[in-house]
């Protein structure tokens, strides 16, 4: 459709609008009403309002299933898109609730508002097939995340990390834009489908190759893939816990989804192949190499970490590598696998950061600070057990099924049967290696003796409930993956 | 098939006895020995009843019991005895009470000791009555355990290494035996001794091997020979045959003397029994094909052990080597029974004589050797543990009755006509001479040397100047005299009237010779 009325457009964009309005409401409430109140009260108020807003948005999305393709692919809404948006909103709700008890900043209203803006950006991001809107939403998301990373003004570490993030991000955004503009130049359109038509003819245009590299670079930065990952460990380590959670969970989900869509839809004719014996030039081999490097580097460096946050960062890089396998496979089934994996991974990371933030308040977040946690905070430790094992891929947790689904769909997709076996073997091997460092965390928690003056950690009841709910959710999704699969 | 499961009951009696002894409370420990004696007498009585009901004219297996056990493995609960089996049962039933009677020196853990003795007896009974390899092997192996502990826990200073050597040697032999029989099972599908022997007789064994065990570099004859080798090894360790005999002297010396009686009286016969029951009927073509080396082994056993006995200073070691020597004659007889020289009639006669002699020798030697060790035990009790050849001297003046009775036993071991030791050896030589003259001639050396060391014992221990230490040595008590007179009496009886035993075994031997005929 080329023309559509404003009201219809508003209707289509209602979810994003609702989120934006909620953001403004939170901002207003904080500035006007509770400016002088206790941080706890401010955080609670902000969280409640945000939650209500997000939940309302979810209801709205559910109530009005749409199928639309507006403005030449600028806005594309379908059942899968809506599912992803609902998932993003749920993730945001969880992060927001978990941050209720924190006090890392005095800009409470801004914090919630920017978080919601980021969410809106993500929601827009996944529902577009037009490179302009994609770039715009990506920037909305990224800028919000830079701000969120820097919100803890009391920590210079945090500021340094945020600055790094901003500089890296800005550079990669520039690269991305350059690549996108090359695409426009080659195809005379900003719509992904039309771009694909235009560039379909082999052999590979060298300009196209440049465009591919640029775009992979841009998105690769977003999802922290090697060799564009250098920001991740510092940001994960120094940003406030909720921001890190947001960056590592929902932003990742959105990032991967859009990465997939751009490459698979936009470069539909130029895939090439990454089969062991018969690789052909295209973007697939590039992504395959990036994936392989991420898996290897992420896992191997994580082994040496002593800080849990940095460990999570490198493991995030590794998991990013696994998810990129879905891109290498680029089939319908592998996209489902990508979604399942990304969503459950995001849940897990939110939970992990939730635990880390509580332990941090009691001391630090080095591995040694986790010693004897099972004696000091049994429920928290049980949740962390679930999260670590799910990340490691131990059944019957969601992480295992996600990996299985991912690897199975990757193998099915090889041009010659089992052409992508080398990637899957590498992935399984690296996944096995990863269990070593996850077990190290669990070893500290369950086996090491608690420090002599360690007393029971007081975990706020809300956090306990949420973390348990997440852990249960991971267990449930692992035992009965169908719950999520049938919606994909 | 008999109605009353005689043989199972017979095997069960010592088992029940052993468990009963173990169950004795702490207060009643001293009753252990009496209880053991009672049960062994019951077993003896049962054996005598068995003898009474045995049909000596038929050479077939009697009192058979056959039940399926593990059908998929061809393992059956198959018992039965012929003349050979009956004689072995009689021997075991005799030797065990003798051993218990001689075990007055056992003062520690009596319950355990006597229950182990009865377990051993059950093992012996089981071995001598089993007709299916699976079943037979269980008893063969299980009898090692009580023997090991008997040697280990009540033995002399080097009992640890003696017992371990004994156990490990025999086990290694058993492993070879097991492997060979498993190969046999793979080819023929049966573990049953009579059936296997029937297969061998009808010449179907080697073709069966050819059909199932195709080992690239060997032809069926060679494979059959290898299998024979495995079984040979298993029994050769037990008999023992040179060069697998090195465990025996140490073991016999270190074991408590009452246990040595059991070892030499009954357990060593298990080896020869194995040759007669298993190896000869099934593998006689293979024996024939390597007859000369085997005969050499038998001759070496006889001669070398005799010379070794001559060099010993410990009475128990002398008798140990003497045991090896006596059983060497048995092996000689067994091997020639598989030979194939001469015309049919004299062949049969010689072989019958040889095998008659073998079985008779087994029984007689069991009796005599046990008696000899009994005397050594009695001597040890009086001398405070000493049993060296040079520790004594002129004892006949101090303990004349003992001297007389032991002298009889010594002469029987020497092979004096009129005593039981003579007949067996005579018959063996009677059979071996025509079939393998050179072997018989060489074996005569053994006889000669045996005479020398026996006479040496008589001279050093009993004659000569009186060793002042023992001038107050008490003679045999009345109980002891009565007890010892039983085997002595038997020695005379069997010496004068060997038909007692020959009558039982003759038909069986004839049948056995028929089996190994071509």
């Amino acid at each position, binding site marked *: 459709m080329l023309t559509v009325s404003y009201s219809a457009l508003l209707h289509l964009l209602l979810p994003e609008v609702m989120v934006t309005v909620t953001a403004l409401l939170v901002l207003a409430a904080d500035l006007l009403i509770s400016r002088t109140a206790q941080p706890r009260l401010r955080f609670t108020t902000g969280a409640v309002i945000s939650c209500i807003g997000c939940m309302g948005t979810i209801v709205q999305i559910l109530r009005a299933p749409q199928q639309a393709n507006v403005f030449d692919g600028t806005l594309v809404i379908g059942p899968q898109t809506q599912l992803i948006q609902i998932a993003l909103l749920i993730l945001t709700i969880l992060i927001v609730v978990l941050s209720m008890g924190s006090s890392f900043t005095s800009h409470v209203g801004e914090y919630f508002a920017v978080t919601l803006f980021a969410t809106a950006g993500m929601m827009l991001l996944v529902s577009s097939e037009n490179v302009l809107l994609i770039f715009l939403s990506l920037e909305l998301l990224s800028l919000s995340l830079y701000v969120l990373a820097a919100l803890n003004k009391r920590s210079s570490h945090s500021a340094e990390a945020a600055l790094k993030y901003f500089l890296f991000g800005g550079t990669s955004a520039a690269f991305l834009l350059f690549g996108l503009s090359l695409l426009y130049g080659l195809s005379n359109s900003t719509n992904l489908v039309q771009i694909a038509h235009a560039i379909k003819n082999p052999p590979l245009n060298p300009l196209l190759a440049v465009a591919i590299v640029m775009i992979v670079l841009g998105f690769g930065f977003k999802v922290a893939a090697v060799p564009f990952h250098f920001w991740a460990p510092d940001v994960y380590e120094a940003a406030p816990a909720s921001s890190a959670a947001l960056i590592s969970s929902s932003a990742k989900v959105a990032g991967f989804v859009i990465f997939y869509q751009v490459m698979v839809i936009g470069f539909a004719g130029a895939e090439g192949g990454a089969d062991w014996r018969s690789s052909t030039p295209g973007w697939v081999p590039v992504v395959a190499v990036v994936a392989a490097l991420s898996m290897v580097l992420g896992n191997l460096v994580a082994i040496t970490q002593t800080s849990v946050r940095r460990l999570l960062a490198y493991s995030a890089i590794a998991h990013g590598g696994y998810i990129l396998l879905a891109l290498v496979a680029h089939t319908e089934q592998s996209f489902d696998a990508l979604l399942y994996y990304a969503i459950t991974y995001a849940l897990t990371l939110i939970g992990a950061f939730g635990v880390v933030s509580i332990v941090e308040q009691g001391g630090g977040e080095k591995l040694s600070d986790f010693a004897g946690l099972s004696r000091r905070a049994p429920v928290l430790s049980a949740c962390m057990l679930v999260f670590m094992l799910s990340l490691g891929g131990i059944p019957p947790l969601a992480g*295992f099924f996600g990996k299985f689904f991912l690897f199975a769909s990757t193998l099915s997709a090889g041009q010659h049967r*089992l052409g992508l076996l080398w990637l899957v073997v590498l992935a399984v091997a690296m996944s096995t290696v990863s*269990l070593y460092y996850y077990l190290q965390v669990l070893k500290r928690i369950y086996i090491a003796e608690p420090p002599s003056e360690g007393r029971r950690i007081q975990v706020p009841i809300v956090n306990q409930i949420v973390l348990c709910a997440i852990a249960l959710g991971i267990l449930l999704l692992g035992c009965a993956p*169908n719950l999520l699969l049938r919606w994909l | 098939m008999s109605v009353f499961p005689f043989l199972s009951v017979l095997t069960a009696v010592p088992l029940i006895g052993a468990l009963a002894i173990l169950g004795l409370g702490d207060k009643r420990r001293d009753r252990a020995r009496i209880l053991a004696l009672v049960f062994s007498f019951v077993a003896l009585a049962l054996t005598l009843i068995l003898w009474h009901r045995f049909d000596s004219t038929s050479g077939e297996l009697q009192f058979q019991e056959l039940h399926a056990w593990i059908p998929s493995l061809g393992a059956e609960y198959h018992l039965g005895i012929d003349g050979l089996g009956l004689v072995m049962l009689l021997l075991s039933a005799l030797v065990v009470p003798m051993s218990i009677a001689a075990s007055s020196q056992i003062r520690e853990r009596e319950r355990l000791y006597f229950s182990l003795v009865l377990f051993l007896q059950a093992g012996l009974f089981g071995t001598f009555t089993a007709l299916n390899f699976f079943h037979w092997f269980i008893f063969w192996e299980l009898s090692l355990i009580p023997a090991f502990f008997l040697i280990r826990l009540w033995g002399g200073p080097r009992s640890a290494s003696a017992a371990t050597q004994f156990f490990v040697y025999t086990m290694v032999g058993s492993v*070879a035996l097991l*492997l060979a029989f498993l190969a046999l099972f793979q080819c023929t599908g049966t573990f049953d001794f009579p059936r296997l022997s029937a297969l061998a007789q009808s010449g179907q064994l080697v073709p069966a091997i050819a059909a199932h065990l195709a080992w690239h570099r060997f032809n069926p004859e060679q494979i059959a020979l290898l299998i024979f080798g495995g079984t040979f090894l298993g029994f050769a360790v037990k008999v023992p045959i040179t060069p697998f005999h090195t465990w025996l002297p140490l073991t016999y010396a270190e074991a408590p003397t009452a246990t040595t009686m059991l070892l030499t009286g009954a357990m060593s016969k298990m080896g020869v029994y194995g040759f007669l029951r298993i190896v000869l009927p099934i593998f006689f073509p293979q024996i024939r094909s390597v007859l000369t080396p085997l005969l050499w082994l038998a001759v070496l056993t006889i001669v070398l052990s005799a010379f070794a006995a001559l060099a010993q200073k410990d009475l128990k070691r002398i008798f140990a080597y003497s045991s090896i020597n006596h059983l060497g004659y048995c092996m000689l007889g067994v091997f020639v029974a598989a030979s194939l020289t001469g015309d049919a009639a004299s062949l049969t006669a010689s072989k019958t004589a040889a095998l008659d002699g073998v079985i008779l020798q087994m029984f007689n030697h069991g009796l005599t050797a046990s008696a000899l060790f009994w005397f050594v035990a009695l001597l040890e009790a009086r001398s405070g543990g000493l049993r060296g050849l040079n520790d004594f001297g002129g004892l006949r003046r101090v303990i004349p009755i003992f001297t007389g009775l032991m002298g009889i036993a010594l002469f029987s071991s020497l092979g004096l006509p009129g005593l039981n030791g003579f007949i067996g050896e005579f018959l063996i030589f009677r059979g071996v001479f025509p079939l393998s003259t050179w072997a018989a001639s060489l074996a005569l050396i053994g006889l000669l040397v045996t005479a020398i060391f026996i006479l040496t014992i008589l001279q050093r221990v009993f004659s000569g100047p009186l060793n002042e230490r023992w001038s107050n040595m008490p003679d045999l008590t009345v109980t002891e005299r009565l007890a010892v007179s039983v085997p002595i009496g038997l020695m005379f009886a069997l010496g004068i009237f060997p038909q007692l035993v020959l009558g039982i075994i003759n038909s069986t031997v004839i049948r056995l010779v028929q089996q190994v005929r071509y």
Partner: protein
Amino acid sequence: MLAWTIYISFLGALVLMLPGVPPRAARGIALLAAIAGFAVTVSGLLRTANGAMATIVHRSWIPSLGIEYHLAADGISLLLVLLTGIVAIAGVLFSWNIDHRSKEFFALYLALIGGVYGVFLSADVFLLFVFYEIAIIPKYFLIAIWGSTRREYAAMKLALYSLVGSAMVLIVLIAAYVIAGAKTMSLLALSQFQFPVHFQMWAFPLMFVGFGILAGLWPFHTWAPTGHVAAPTAASMLLAGVVMKLGAYGCLRVAMTLFPRGLDPWGFTVLGLASWNDVFSLLAVIGIVYGAMVALVQQDFKFVVGYSSVSHMGFVLLGLMTLNRIGLNGAVLQMFSHGVLAALLFAVVGRMVYDRTHTRELAALSKMHLSKAIPFAAVTFVLAAIASIGMPGFSGFVAELQVLIGAWSAFPICVVGAGIGIAISVAYAWRAMQKAFFSDTGLKDTAPLLPPISMPERFGALTLVIASLAVGLYPQWLLNLVIPALNSPLFDGLRKGHW
């Protein structure tokens, strides 16, 4: 019905994690759960008319991938489930004295047992793999928290080896799933799918080695002695007794049924070996002999038992590689027999001796006259030792017998090697027994005062000894389960051309 074995175990583990349960009650609850599981197994056994595969639960689970929640049991599974029940009960009895974090101990123990039950009862390969992996984490914690010598290192080594093994299995699993059309993970369906021969040629050895690592296949066995020695008694009983059988079971149930052509000759020979069949049977025999030889020179009592486990598992693997009926019968029977005997040996060495004497050095033990101090332990160890060297009348004999018969027609040289292994096993068993219990200085000296053997220990030991004796004297009960099981269509591919 048999699925309740799994559910009861996990339920028990869950109950034990609840904060309100008093620690003293933990062992009672665990015992109850173990006995309940065993009772369910026995009732299932009594109802089985034959040993053929019988479905217990069959539900669709993830339809889009063709994965089902499918539990089924045939004779082999029943036999192994029975073994698990027996060893589980004995393990709890031998852990009666644990009071350090006892709730967590028994919870982990029950979780491990639940996972093991699950593996034996799964008829969907995905489900089997899930349970297989579930069993790894409790092992890690059991050793790392309650273990002894170098426990953290041993636990990590064990966990990593197991994980590497399961990674190899996972790769083959996914590849096979994809090649078979990505429609089903049912064991039966996959076993009937004709995988391309060249695929089977690399898939089979990879999967066999993957499972074989857990079964102690030489040379991937090094985790086993370290891990078993470091583990607390109940854990070593379970690990050596049951968990190693998981590997062997996986080899038989999955690797050999799915990829039977992988065992065919390659068409060329390397060092006299012409197929994976030859290679693995050679490795099995090397394992038998190597395990025995190393056990012979150990100074630590528990290490003797640890290496003897490697040696005995070699028999299982040899039996599997004979590819004939009798050999496979023997392999399965040996799984049961060694399970019981390994549990018994570790119980004696760990609980009866080490917990009392606080040393495992044979030289130190030989000064303690243990046969007088703890005669029950001495008798039990003697029985266990003679059973494990293959003395007839006990279960080991029947099992090894069948393996050797089977091996005669397949690999004669291997039989000789195995025979040598048996002979060496006599030597090490006897050496350990003598040094530990019947030391040289005779019966004269007085023995140190050690706590007597408690009732739970006696019960546990009695259970295991009776189990071994019963199977040794009348193995037909178990063979009646195994023989029909080998007739099932699962083993069709294996049967063609082999038996």
